[in-house]
Structures are given as structure tokens and as C-alpha cells.
């Protein structure tokens, strides 16, 4: 399999799981496309194929993936996907129900526009692509008058999707475009923006603080919403302040507080390039309950919590964003704080704890208010340190509408990035400003004293002692996940995104595919005998992520194969597959061989086109000059994993 094909296969796997308009999944798929633009052609083909072949009700989500990719990544996908857009679109449209058709028409409409909030004024797809489809639609509607063309959305909301109920209250920008912009940061200098005096005014408030429930259907993708980011940071800051107020002596809280202040300062005073904003966003989302947790909250209005309003709301009446301070206190006092009574009691908030009903024994669902933005962890500080590097190219005012470069209106030369680095470092370290940017880079910061370590030596510094076991090291635990971000969605095993990691995953996916063989299930399987001591001591574990030969070459370990260990693949030839052993006339027993990755006949050898029991053959040929042929190497692959029942029989083949 070529590498391109592997990437495409990964993409296809993820795509096949997409059965609803899931924002998270769509953004993951978009991410894969974005990270692999060199394989854009293979990915585009995969996507087209999927839209063509998947069930009608799953076509729309897949089209949203397409939409998200062309809007957020752009070329070369627009080129590849544009080529076959007409047949792809048309085929899907014809199978779709009326609601989906409406949604698709809106998609098409949005493709005739520039990417929302982008400074690139060109439409998403060139008109050569969209025109044909438009013509088709007009004819289609003419032939099907019972399905008249839906009314064009009103001018003010040109891209609204009628399929989704409009939200009450504030309108989220994502609702106005099929899929929200992601990779392209909104360009505030774009004259089309109603940019007010403050930078992010054109962007609606973050969804997290939207008060009204929205449709169950998740929005397709996410964007770096500056306002929302600020809101989240502010919320964290507030929570941290709360925690700090509760336990003023705690150094960790203080340091986290300072780190957050630093982050806020940087966000407010500097124009960070898009990728840095994305990193911050990602980081915050990573540390948080998944980005969707907030959506969960708004999507599924929960039963009213049985307890009083969490205390922090008194500190923060202006927002309904959930409160991570609870987590914070929990982390600071893993064995309980004075005001938390039990591990299960949902009463960790200061104001309500004393009122908690101690008799409430029932299993409970956590008040959803508690789900919320992340607890800030030191890894954020580490990440920030890296932002203190002077940017390779200083932000420039570049109002040319053709440029995709992120441009900020407030790029303030008076507040140099390096200066803010020092400022932040001070905040984090409590040290006088001495650090140069390069020294910052060399030693990533941690705001947690006992976990001040680089990832390379992180493990070495967790002391093995009873006291040490109680100390939280939150930034280290998430490395269990972060170090292996490439998840197999079928079984949960993780890989890296390095070339090696991707290769391993590809082999792993192949393995999944093979064991899913529906024929395999039909043949009766049974428990195998365990291997004996000697075999076990020499046994090489089978690793499906390694190439076949990797565990084969160890000559020193290769034990001389005994007859019973020999096997041949179950023959394809029907007559041969039915034939018994010519010597004993008994049939062969097939079993799955993990190493060969196919069904084999154990204790078997092939001689002159016939298959014999290896043990029968050995007995027969003993004394003659014929040497029993060995199992061919191509079949051997690795050491056998299966144990044949031979050796236990009363014939005493081996014993």
C-alpha cells in the first residue's frame, strides 16, 4: 500500500464512522485533510467515493465534511473536489429527502460566495463548478414541481440553513454558514466586516454562553473564535481567582492565576498569528472537558440540579459558563477540602456544601453546570513560553484582500512580543525579567514546582514514595494521551503522527480488517491449548503493528521446528481442501494462525502437491532418505502463535 493510500484509508475509516452531523468528527476529518494536503488527491477521491456509496441519510454529513474542507483548507482540495462536483452532487441530491435537498442547495449557494469572514473575495468554488449544478437544479425543480425551489433565505442571512432551527437569542456565526471557517482567521480589516473600534466585534459571542438550547444536531466544525477564547480564559481566571481566594496560601493556584493573567495580557495586547491562537484554543480544549462539553450542556438541557446554585456564580453573575474551580479545589486537595464532605456528594461549592443533604444517597448525575472550560494546567504555561519567541516575521498591516495572512487591527508595535514574554515569564516565575526568548525555549516553563521537568525526563522525577504518590501532576497525566495523538477509533489504541506511528497504525488497521473477516466467524473456533514453559520463555509476542519480518530475523531464538509445529495455509483448491491425509486418512483441522494471519492446517506439510500430517510424514519417511520439507518461509512469517493439540494425544506424538 502506498503511503498516500494509507492516509486515504485512515481518512476513509474516520469517514465511515460519520453518521450524523457531528461537529467534532467533521473537524477531525478536516484536520486530517489539512495535515495531509500532499495526499489531497487520494483523500478527495475517498471522500467522493464515500458520498457516492454511503447510505442516503449519511450523505449530508459527508457533504458537510467536503464543505468544511474546501472552506477551511481550500486548495488543492477545491481543485480535486471541484472536478467531479457535478456528478457527486447530483447523485446525492437525487437520493436525498426534501430536507436534505434544501440543505444541499444552501451548501451550493454558500459555495458561490467567498469563505465567510475571509479576506479572499473569490468564491469557494469557481463558477465553472457551481454553474452546472445550478442548471441541473433548476431543471430538476422544473421536472418536480411538487418540490418547488425553497425560498432563498432573506438577504441578511444569506447562508442560513433552514434545516436547522434558528437559535433564539444571539445568532451564532456558525449557523450562518454551512460549515464555519476554521483555518482562515477572520480578517478584521476586510472592509466587508462591520468592524467596530474593538477588534473582535464582528464575531458573535461564543456558543458557550449562549443561553438558549440549540438543535440536537451538532454544528459541523469549529473556528478559532477570539471572543470565545477570551471568554474561556476570563472564566478560568475567575475560577482561579475564586480558588485563590479560598486558599490564598496555595502556591499552585497562585502560579496558575499568574499564568492565566499572562495569557490574558498577551491575548489582549498582541496580535497573535493564527496558528498560535489555534494552539491556545487547542490547548484549552485539550485540557478541558472536550470542546463539546459545553455544547452538551446547551444541547441537552439537563434536569435542574438538585442543589443550590454553585457558589462561583455569585462571583460571576455575568456568565453561565461552568465552573472548573471545583476541579481545581479537588486537585489541590485530593483528599478532600474542609467543605467537601464526601467524594460523591455533588456539593463541592463553598456556598452550598454546608447545605448539602447528607441523606441524599441516590446515584446522581452531576449538575451539568459543572462541565465546563478547562482547568488551566502548567502545560499551558509551557506552551505560552513558546509564544514568547519573537515571531519569524513580525505581524504586518496587510489589508490587501487577496492575502490570506492573518492580520490584526491592533498589531501594536509599541508592545513588542519579546517584552510580553518577559512580562509573562515574570508572572509565571515570580522572577525578575532576565530570560531571553531563547532561554525560554530551552526550558519550558511549568508553574507547578514539583513537576518542573521537560518531557524527556518527566518520568524520572516522579519519586516513588508514599507521599509522592499523593501529589497531583496533572500536566504529566495528559501526556498519556497527548504523546500519542493518533487514535485508532476501532479499539482505542494510540499511535503517534510520526512516519513510524502512521505506518504502525496502517498495519494495525489492516489487522483489524483481517480479523473482521466474516468467513472466519462461520468456521467453528475453539480455545487453544496453552503453550508450555519452554515455549513461553522463548515466545515473542505478536505485534500487529510491526512488519511481518521484524520479529522473524532472530536466528539465535529460532528453535528447531518440530513436526507438529509445521503448517500450511488451508488450500484454495477445493479438492485439495477436502482431501484427508493420505497416510492416516484423517481430515485436517484448520485453525486461525495469528502469525500467518490466515487459516492454516497445523501439523501439515506439502510434498509433491499433496498435503500430509507432518507427524505422519515424518514417521513414514523416517529411515528413508527423504527429508521432510520445512514450512516455507513465506508462510512462516513469524513464530507460530497457535498450539497444536498434538503432543497431548494418547498416541503420544511428542510426549
Amino acid at each position, binding site marked *: 500500500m502506498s503511503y498516500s493510500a494509507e492516509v486515504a484509508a485512515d481518512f476513509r475509516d474516520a469517514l465511515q464512522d460519520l453518521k450524523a452531523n457531528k461537529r467534532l468528527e467533521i473537524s477531525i476529518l478536516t484536520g486530517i485533510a489539512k495535515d495531509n494536503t500532499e495526499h489531497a488527491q487520494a483523500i478527495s477521491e475517498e471522500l467522493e467515493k464515500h458520498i457516492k456509496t454511503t447510505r442516503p441519510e449519511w450523505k449530508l454529513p459527508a457533504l458537510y465534511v467536503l464543505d468544511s474542507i474546501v472552506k477551511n483548507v481550500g486548495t488543492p482540495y477545491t481543485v480535486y473536489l471541484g472536478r467531479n462536483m457535478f456528478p457527486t452532487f447530483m447523485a446525492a441530491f437525487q437520493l436525498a429527502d426534501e430536507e436534505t435537498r434544501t440543505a444541499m442547495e444552501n451548501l451550493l449557494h454558500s459555495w458561490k460566495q467567498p469563505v465567510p469572514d475571509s479576506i479572499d473575495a473569490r468564491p469557494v468554488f469557481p463558477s465553472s463548478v457551481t454553474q452546472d449544478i445550478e442548471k441541473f437544479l433548476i431543471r430538476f425543480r422544473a421536472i418536480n414541481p411538487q418540490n418547488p425551489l425553497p425560498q432563498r433565505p432573506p438577504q441578511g442571512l444569506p447562508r442560513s440553513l433552514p434545516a436547522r432551527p434558528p437559535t433564539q437569542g444571539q445568532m451564532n456565526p456558525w449557523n450562518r454558514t454551512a460549515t464555519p471557517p476554521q483555518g482562515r482567521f477572520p480578517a478584521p480589516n476586510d472592509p466587508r466586516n462591520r468592524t467596530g473600534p474593538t477588534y473582535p466585534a464582528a464575531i458573535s459571542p461564543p456558543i458557550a454562553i449562549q443561553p438558549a438550547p440549540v438543535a440536537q444536531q451538532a454544528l459541523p466544525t469549529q473556528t478559532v473564535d477570539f471572543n470565545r477564547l477570551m471568554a474561556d480564559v476570563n472564566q478560568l481566571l475567575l475560577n482561579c481567582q475564586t480558588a485563590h481566594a479560598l486558599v490564598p496560601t496555595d502556591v499552585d493556584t497562585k502560579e496558575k492565576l499568574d499564568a492565566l493573567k499572562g495569557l490574558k495580557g498577551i491575548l489582549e495586547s498582541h496580535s497573535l498569528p493564527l496558528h498560535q491562537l489555534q494552539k491556545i484554543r487547542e490547548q484549552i480544549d485539550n*485540557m478541558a472537558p472536550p470542546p463539546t462539553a459545553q455544547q452538551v450542556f446547551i444541547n441537552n438541557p439537563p434536569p435542574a440540579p438538585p442543589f443550590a446554585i454553585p457558589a462561583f456564580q455569585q462571583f460571576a453573575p455575568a456568565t453561565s459558563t461552568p465552573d472548573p474551580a471545583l476541579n481545581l479545589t479537588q486537585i489541590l486537595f485530593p483528599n478532600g477540602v474542609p467543605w467537601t464532605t464526601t467524594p*460523591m456528594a455533588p456539593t463541592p461549592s463553598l456556598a452550598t456544601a454546608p447545605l448539602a443533604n447528607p441523606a441524599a444517597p441516590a446515584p446522581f448525575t452531576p449538575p451539568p453546570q459543572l462541565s465546563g472550560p478547562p482547568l488551566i494546567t502548567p502545560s499551558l504555561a509551557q506552551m505560552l513560553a513558546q509564544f514568547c519567541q519573537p515571531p519569524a516575521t513580525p505581524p504586518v498591516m496587510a489589508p490587501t484582500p487577496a492575502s490570506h495572512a492573518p492580520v490584526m487591527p491592533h498589531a501594536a508595535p509599541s508592545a513588542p512580543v519579546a517584552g510580553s514574554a518577559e512580562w509573562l515569564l515574570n508572572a509565571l516565575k515570580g522572577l525578575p525579567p532576565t530570560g531571553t526568548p531563547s532561554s525560554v525555549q530551552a526550558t519550558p516553563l511549568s508553574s507547578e514546582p514539583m513537576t518542573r521537568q521537560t518531557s524527556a525526563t*518527566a518520568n*524520572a522525577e516522579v519519586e516513588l514514595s508514599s507521599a509522592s504518590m499523593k501529589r497531583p501532576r496533572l500536566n*504529566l497525566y495528559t501526556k498519556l494521551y497527548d504523546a500519542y495523538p493518533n487514535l485508532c477509533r476501532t479499539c482505542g489504541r494510540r499511535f503517534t503522527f510520526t512516519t513510524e506511528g502512521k505506518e504502525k497504525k496502517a498495519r494495525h488497521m489492516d489487522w483489524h480488517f483481517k480479523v473482521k473477516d466474516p468467513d472466519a466467524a462461520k468456521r467453528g473456533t*475453539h480455545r487453544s491449548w496453552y503453550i508450555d514453559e519452554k515455549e513461553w520463555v522463548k515466545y515473542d*509476542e505478536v505485534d500487529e503493528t510491526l512488519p511481518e519480518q521484524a520479529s522473524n530475523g532472530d536466528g539465535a531464538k529460532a528453535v528447531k521446528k518440530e513436526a507438529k509445529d509445521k503448517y500450511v495455509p488451508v488450500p484454495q483448491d477445493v479438492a485439495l481442501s477436502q482431501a484427508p491425509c493420505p497416510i492416516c486418512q484423517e481430515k485436517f483441522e484448520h485453525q486461525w494462525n495469528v502469525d500467518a494471519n490466515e487459516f492454516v492446517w497445523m501439523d501439515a506439510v506439502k510434498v509433491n502437491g499433496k498435503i500430509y500430517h507432518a507427524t505422519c510424514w515424518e514417521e513414514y519417511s523416517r529411515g528413508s532418505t527423504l527429508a521432510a520439507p520445512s514450512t516455507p518461509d513465506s508462510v512462516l512469517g513469524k513464530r507460530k*502463535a497457535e498450539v497444536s493439540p498434538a503432543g497431548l494425544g494418547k498416541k503420544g506424538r511428542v510426549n
Partner: protein
Amino acid sequence: MMNLPGLNLATPVADAPPIAVVEKHEHNLRIYTEYRFEVSFARTLTIKLLEGTAEYFGTELAPTQTYSFSGTKGAIFTWHGCRLEVSGEAESEYVAEETGMVAYANAHLALEGLRDRGGLEGGPRVLVVGPENAGKTSLCKILTAYAVKVGRQPMMVNLDPRQGMLSVPGSLSTAAFSSILDVEEGWGSSPISGPSPIPVKMPLVYHYGLANPEEGKVFKPLVTRMALAVISRLEEEPLSKSVGFVIDTPGSISAGKGGVYDNIEHIVSEFSINVVFVLGSERLYSDLSRKYQNRPTDEAVNVVRLDKSGGCVDRDEAYMKQFRQAQIRAYFFGSDKENGLAPHSQTSDFGDLNIFRIAEDSSNAYGHDEDDMYSRPSGIYEKTIPTLSIQNSLLAVTTASPADRQEVIRDASVRGYVYVSDVDETKKKVRLLLPQPGQTPANAMILGSFPEDVPGLVS
């Protein structure tokens, strides 16, 4: 924290009508919390991860799977927050704010540090001790799962015969884990003749045949034997050596007779243990740390205390019995996931079977009845011809020949188990259930008193 009314008290299943959760519902877990549940054997609870990340005793849930649990008490923990969809019937379920995971993850990180620095000495050799239901097995799973997650191949040793690892109860076993643990099936599955959706594990199995290591005289020799195999394997495999191993133990060896922990000491010395995790017993911790405090550096044993998780559930004998039967059933018939295995039923003559019954009073063999012929030091087993009394029992098929000395039979690993489904004393025939087709094994077979009979395994 264990005495919250109605939450995790072990109530006999029969008395308390289960709190039935029939409706499909969702749980939003905040970061660092866990969803705890108990499902009886008669019911099934399914859990699907909708958003975020979640892990079951250290093994991550895949976002595309729906996991079903039955006869399980467990917890789904999240480091990042998650949304779970739950349906089915649980005896109890709740979300816990305070979990033991920080300490367990610290334990993993500390072991990783030792692995990185291990050098020629190899990775940490870890023993987990503590009373029954202190969370020992759960900790072992987490440590194994995390090591696998970071790309290691850790080795596990189970010395608790009450609960089999990759085998039936009554066995002691060890295996290296190069692939993820099976969320639904505890430790996973030993090899089967067909493909398996989770890679199988390759255990080395010995048969103990009694419930309690403190009885009988077979436990220590088996520990010695197993240590030999494990250490040989580590010498063969430098990669495994650098990771080391973790040993799970039964609660009984932590009880201590007058402050003496005979079996613990034996394990520590046979396996050259250098890290002991003590779960949930202050006294055991203080006894052991005193015992091992003044050792020369090259034999140092680091005794570390870990708090018992508030989630641990006391499992009564009724539950444990059902648990054992489920393990035995799964050995022959597979779990659902293995799509049902097809064991082989066949009839054998009495003469084909070489059964060695563990001698009743073997623990008192030394000293007391010296003239009793079965109580000689070598009287570990009594050769037995089949009688009705062995019906429904499990025989361990050893690698030893019936002609071997009893010590050899004792020390032999097992190839598997056969189940005696019927005994016809007049025709002198037994009906056996074998895991796979083939002739009746002529090897020495061990018959112990544990696990107990499993009536009706074959109907």
C-alpha cells in the same frame, strides 16, 4: 467514604431488587471524575463514549465501540471530561468526584522513571499486596494498561487463585501484554483457533487447585517455579526486562499471622521484588516497611503505600461464585465477543484418564501422621480413578506424564482444562468437555477442590 448509604454496600443480589436503569441516558463527566457502576450477571449495561476521552481501569474506550458489561463492578474515568451514553440495567451507578486515579497514575509515572533508568538491572519488579477488595487487581490493570499505552510490553503475574487471569480460577498465571487489555473481558482472552477482535494474550498457566494460598503446600513451590519462568523470559527478552513485571496477589497472604507474612516474603525473595505497593492497610504497610527498611542497596525493597479507592466494592461469596463460573464458561464457550467457542465433547474410558487429586491433608503432612502413606512429604496428590464425585469438576491438564514424580507434576505448567460432564461408573466411561477436538490427553491431570463444581456447564 465507603459507608455512604445505599451506594456501594454489597447487598445480596437476591434480596435487593436491582435499581433498574432501563432508559438510555447520558452522563457528562467532568475532568478527573469517574462513572461507577455495578451490573449483575443476569443483566447487561452498555456504555458508549460520545465525546471526550474515557478509560476503564486504564484502557481507553474507543469512540466507535459500544461496550457491554455484565457481572461487573467497575468505573469509567476521564482525564479530559467526557460524555457517555449508558443503557441497560445497573444495580447502582453514580459519578464520583474523588477517585484514586491521581495516585495510580503517579505510580505508573514513578515506575516509568525506574524503567528509563533501569539499565542492566532491568525494570521494576513490583508486588501489589493488601486485603481483599482493596483494589489490587484494579491497580494491576491500570499499571499494565498504562505501560501498554506508552508502548511498553509489561508482564503480569497473577498469584491469586480466587480470580483467574487469562484462565480459570484456581490457576496461577503470567503473561506479557503487547496489546491493549480487553475492556469487557477483564484481562482479555488466551489464544483461540480463530481471529479475535482484541489481540489474544499468551499466558503461562499453573494449577493451584485450592482457594487459599495459606492452605496446602503447593503455593510456595509454584511461586518458585513461576519466578523461574518469568525471570528466564526476562533474560531472553531485553525489552521485557527493561519493563519488569507486576504481581497481583490474594488478600489472604496480607493477613499476616502474628506479624509474619510468610508468603509475601517468599514472593519477594523468589521474584527479587524491589517495589511493593501496599493498598488499603496501614498496618500491613508499617509491618512491611519495617521489615524491609534496612536492606543492602542492591536488595532494597521500596515499600509504598497507596490509598484504597473509594470505588472499591466488597464482593460477597455469592458474587465471587458467579464470577468463577462465568470465567470457566468463558474458557470453554468464549465470551460473546469471541462469537462463541465450540468446545469438543467426547467419551473416554476410565483407563484413559490419569487423575491426581490434591491430597486432603497435605498441609499437615509434615510432622503429624508420619505413618499415613498419603502423608509422606511426596504425598502431594492421590492418584484417583473416576467416580461420580468428580462429575462437574474441572481437571487441569498438565504437561507432565503420569509416570513423573509428584513434584514434577506439581511444577508442571498446564496445557488447559477439561470438564467432566458425566461419569458412568458401571460402563467405566466419562464424558469430557475438551476445549478443542483431539484425543483425550494422556498427561497427568490435577483435580483440586477449587474451583468448586460447575453444575450444568453442559446441558
